[in-house]
């Protein structure tokens, strides 16, 4: 079924977008390794993998959500709130082994709140998640104020930055690869995954062919929240700091990579390989600019521009193609 899908006209342009973004990523890595000092070292490659973990994990679920034609702008605030809650629990003397599953559970509950407002009350996901973006971030400030909890056990924080033996391969790479592969299989090779495309491309047609669109979306939001909870755990341990402003503004980067990866903001179109390439590309660009001593503020210009270009470029290409066809018709 997948091959037939691919050869259909609508998706052919997308397959080339996928290929283009992967090619651009490889090209950038090669050029940066040549021209930016320290970029190509094994040490920096390890840092790069650790740096892209939060965006990658959040982008996996965000891809599915955008694919259904919805959006979740509250992910970064959910990361912040779970991180703040971890800090409060740790201060209260709860063990880290208990805190970690509770943080993921809290994330799932916060995601379920989004899902309830969106699928239960039928409210626009954009407005709901702008609301919870403010609400969850506000609650993290209520929990921790402007203080930080930093006394996390070394063996845990060390693991997030550590490598497997002497190999130089970051510990994080294995779980990240497993999760990414699992999501790719889920989306591209299962009925459930295909129903996400259906729900995004035409929700009414999907509903009539037996897809429980609302239930599907609800669980996607629960999944998005749980993943944000997991990232909250990761973020807290990686920086060894639970703060209310953790992951502030990260939702922009996540949405940017999903759109740059070729997922249509209107839903129904896209594929995971493009998104994974976009995650690597964006993180590598930021990493290279930082190594080249470009200020962190300049990085926001890059992310913002890439976000716009990611949506603008396919639109311009398709309208240019249309103009060309129209002219050909006129001359014929």
């Amino acid at each position, binding site marked *: 079924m997948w091959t037939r899908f691919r050869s259909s006209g609508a998706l052919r342009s997308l397959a080339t977008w996928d290929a283009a973004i992967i090619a651009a990523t490889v090209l950038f890595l090669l050029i940066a390794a040549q021209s930016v000092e320290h970029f190509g070292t094994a040490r920096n490659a390890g840092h790069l993998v650790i740096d892209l973990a939060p965006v990658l994990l959040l982008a996996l679920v965000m891809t599915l959500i955008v694919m259904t034609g919805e959006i979740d702008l509250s992910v970064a605030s959910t990361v912040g709130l779970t991180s703040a809650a971890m800090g409060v629990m740790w201060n209260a003397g709860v063990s880290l082994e208990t805190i970690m599953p509770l943080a993921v559970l809290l994330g799932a509950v916060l995601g379920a709140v989004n899902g309830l407002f969106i699928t239960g009350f039928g409210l626009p996901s954009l407005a709901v998640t702008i609301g919870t973006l*403010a609400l969850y971030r506000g609650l993290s*400030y209520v929990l921790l104020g402007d203080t930080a909890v930093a006394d996390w056990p070394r063996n845990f924080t060390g693991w997030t930055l550590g490598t497997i033996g002497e190999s130089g391969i970051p510990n994080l790479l294995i779980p990240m690869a497993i999760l990414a592969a699992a999501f790719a299989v889920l989306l591209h090779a299962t009925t459930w995954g295909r129903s996400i495309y259906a729900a995004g491309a035409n929700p009414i047609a999907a509903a009539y062919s037996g897809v429980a669109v609302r239930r599907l979306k609800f669980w996607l939001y629960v999944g998005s929240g749980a993943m944000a909870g997991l990232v909250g755990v990761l973020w807290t341990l990686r920086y060894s700091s639970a703060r209310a402003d953790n992951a502030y503004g990260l939702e922009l980067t996540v949405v940017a990579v999903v759109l740059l990866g070729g997922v249509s903001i209107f839903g129904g179109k896209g594929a995971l390989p493009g998104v994974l390439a976009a995650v690597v590309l964006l993180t590598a660009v930021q990493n290279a600019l930082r190594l080249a001593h470009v200020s962190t503020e300049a990085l926001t210009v890059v992310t913002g521009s890439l976000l*716009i270009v990611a949506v603008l470029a396919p639109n*311009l290409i398709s309208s240019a193609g249309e103009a060309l066809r129209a002219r050909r018709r006129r001359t014929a």
Partner: protein
Amino acid sequence: MTTVADAPDQTPSAGTGSTALDLILRFRALGLLLALAALIVITASVNPRFLGAQSIRDLLFAAAVTVLLAAGMTVVVLTRGIDLSVGSTLGLSAYLTATALSSGTPVPLALLVGIGAGAACGAVNGAIVHFGKVPPLVATLGTLYVFRGIVYFTAGGSRVNASDLPRGFLDFGSGAVLGVPYLFIISALVLAAVAVFLSDYRAGRDLYALGSNPEAARQTGLPAGRRLMTAYVLCGALAGLGGVLYAARFGTVDASAGYGMELNIVAAVVVGGVAIFGGSGTVLGAGLGALLLTVISNALPVLRIDQFWQQAIVGALILAAIALDRLVGLRAARALRRKASHVD
């Protein structure tokens, strides 16, 4: 839902058909006034000084910029759009205005610089949305970061201090007549002008039409592109004017001016009853929403509630407002169906 909810806007004096709906929609402004009154009474009973001249003046100072930006945001939201870049636009305009003034540019020219910078930002947004066919959310989320990045580029770590600005400009910024700050008077006048534009001018009415049914609006030959550009440029220009007021009020301007402000503005507009899916709402409601948010943030310290609660309250208000809109919309639709069955 939106098409039903904005029926009264298109037929303001249609008598029988819209009275029930009119009441429900007017209820929003009434509800906002009641909430404002309740909040003020409670806060004043905790500390009577909340109603003192100084306290009210502080409140109006704080409200001036929010009201102004809410008016601009309303215009964009009416067209089914959103402008998340207003905070960054304000920052850019405030910094450029302050820099121009500190290098000796006369005030009227600096004012033009500020408004012009804002209008240019708005034009960029409008062009990306209209010509690039990029959804407004994505376009302005991108320019939020691009515009802010530009401010950081030009400002670096430096800032303009109050001592660098002309005396008269700062006096105007802190001045008041009969206890009402000049800045608030400007905002109120602009709000009134936008209200008249939206209700009495063809271009203004077109924005409602575009928002409630873009397809139909285009079919009737309405110049959709020009109207969209007008909306975004107006929103940007008002954010630019907001930047000038910001500079006048604070005197000290650095690259972070207006950071994160977009959330409050979206909250003010949504709480003020402007439907996020366009076509319905008034600029007066948005102004009341802005006023309510300002009163809340000024009342928190008086009520001895931690200032850290403010953002959480903003978020909760957005959720409550859109849920309420949905409820009102559903009730209105049911009422219309009942009426229709009577006619049959």
